[in-house]
């Protein structure tokens, strides 16, 4: 049945791209290029290297921001999940942050941190971090009591319980949080490039738009979405490799 699912995926891709192509040919709007034109622009930009230069710029705040959010987020999440005082103190902040539209903070970040890498990294962080922290802490809190007890009854030390039971048990939810965080981070990185200073892919988008080179604009958008999806798939693979037995959830469910 793998063939069926693969061919259906291809079929649905073909349908979507064909719809795009047709819409572009009608055209729905003079500013809406066809699929083939966009792909052509993408190939051209790949050939002459513009796209790589752009991604070198875009990925900087993204990678730095996501790395900081992941390390700090998981760290804080573990801490908040394990200690009721920190839970009380920090959880509300992150709960509010997760619910709130932090994009509104961007003008302020620009005022406070200027327009360099710092602000952009911060935008990525404020988008990505809350969900990572909240997922990690709730995963840690929800570690099945019985396997923790099992650890205790087999004389595991606190560190072993933490490293060999709590963290592996929490890993699926932590990874789910990471995935959400990374995708929010992508949103943040693009937002930063559209809102703070146009560099990298954001620059291709705004500049092509300003000179009415719509195929390039669509090519850039297409490529960033593709990149996000590839990146997230990679993360999923990583999780499967790291925690094999977790795939089916908890045995005690």
């Amino acid at each position, binding site marked *: 049945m793998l063939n069926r699912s693969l061919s259906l995926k291809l079929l649905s891709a073909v349908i979507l791209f064909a719809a795009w192509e047709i819409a572009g040919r009608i055209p729905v709007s003079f500013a809406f290029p066809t699929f083939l034109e966009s792909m052509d622009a993408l190939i051209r930009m790949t050939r002459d290297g513009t796209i790589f230069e752009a991604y070198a710029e875009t990925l900087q705040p993204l990678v730095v921001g996501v790395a900081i959010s992941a390390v700090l987020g998981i760290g804080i999440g573990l801490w908040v999940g394990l200690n009721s005082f920190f839970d009380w103190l920090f959880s509300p902040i992150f709960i509010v942050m997760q619910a709130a539209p932090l994009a509104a903070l961007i003008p302020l970040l620009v005022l406070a941190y200027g327009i360099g890498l710092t602000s952009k990294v911060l935008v990525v962080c404020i988008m990505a971090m809350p969900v990572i922290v909240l997922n990690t802490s709730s995963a840690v809190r929800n570690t099945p009591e019985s396997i923790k007890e099992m650890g*205790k*009854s*087999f*004389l595991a030390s606190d560190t072993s319980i933490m490293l060999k*039971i709590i963290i592996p048990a929490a*890993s699926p939810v932590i990874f789910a949080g990471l995935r959400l965080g990374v995708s929010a981070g992508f949103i943040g990185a693009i937002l930063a490039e559209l809102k703070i200073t146009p560099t990298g892919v954001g620059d291709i988008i705004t500049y092509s738009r300003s000179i009415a080179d719509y195929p390039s604009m669509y090519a850039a958008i297409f490529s960033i979405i593709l990149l996000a999806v590839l990146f997230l798939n990679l993360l999923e693979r990583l999780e499967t490799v790291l925690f094999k*037995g977790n795939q089916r959830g908890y*045995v005690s469910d």
Partner: protein
Amino acid sequence: MVMSPTKLAAAGAATSEFESAVSTRNISKNYGEVEALRDLSLEFPRGQLTSLLGPSGCGKTTLLKIIAGLLEPTSGEVEVNGKKVTGPGPDRAFVFQDFALLPWATVMRNVAFGLEMRGVAKSEREAIAEKYIKEVGLAGFEQSYPHELSGGMRQRVGLARALSVDAQVLLMDEPFSAVDEQTRRKFQEDLLSLVQNENKTFIFVTHSIEEAVYVSDQIAILLPRPSRVHEIIRPSNFRDKGVDNIRRDSEYLDIVDDIWASLRTYVE
């Protein structure tokens, strides 16, 4: 109610003819307002299997966890081999009702987990685990993950893990309740031979009267909260009649009926 000859007077009565591996003395346990156990004393003879039987919510799990050192009693104390229990120790191993396997670890790693926690070197602990995996009949499944096993097989992993740390006391909380009836019958027979062959003390919680009578050397009946020991029964005479005959022994059937008569009123 007619007292059968095998039924002893209530709690704390003379089990002095046996040496106690575990003794609980005047244990009380409150969960906030809820009084789960009150002033419970009970002796567990060495090398024998003692069942705790009683209606749901009467405090069987609570008592078992207090013995395991996972819970602190509100008052009273537990001694294992004459030493007071203050926490989990290498002399006791727990078999959990819901198996409590690590879903991300192979059967091998799960069975070796107890030894891993005790700092046994990898090659050594795997050799030991290997042996017990074979013993419980799971040879060939060393590299499987728990989700690839049936309920009965998972419970055997839990059992192998408890056996591999070679504790003198095995605490089993409804170990067979999640496996189907026919498998369960098989397990009961296996358990009997385990008690016979290994010189360990078993403490066994169950809801099934037949199961308790079938596998136990001593049965402690607890009544609803706040729980104390209602009576202790020592089925003695049918032990040697062989696995196949126990279930039709009249003493066995008498005991089952007696227990059923005393518990019946508490069911629903």
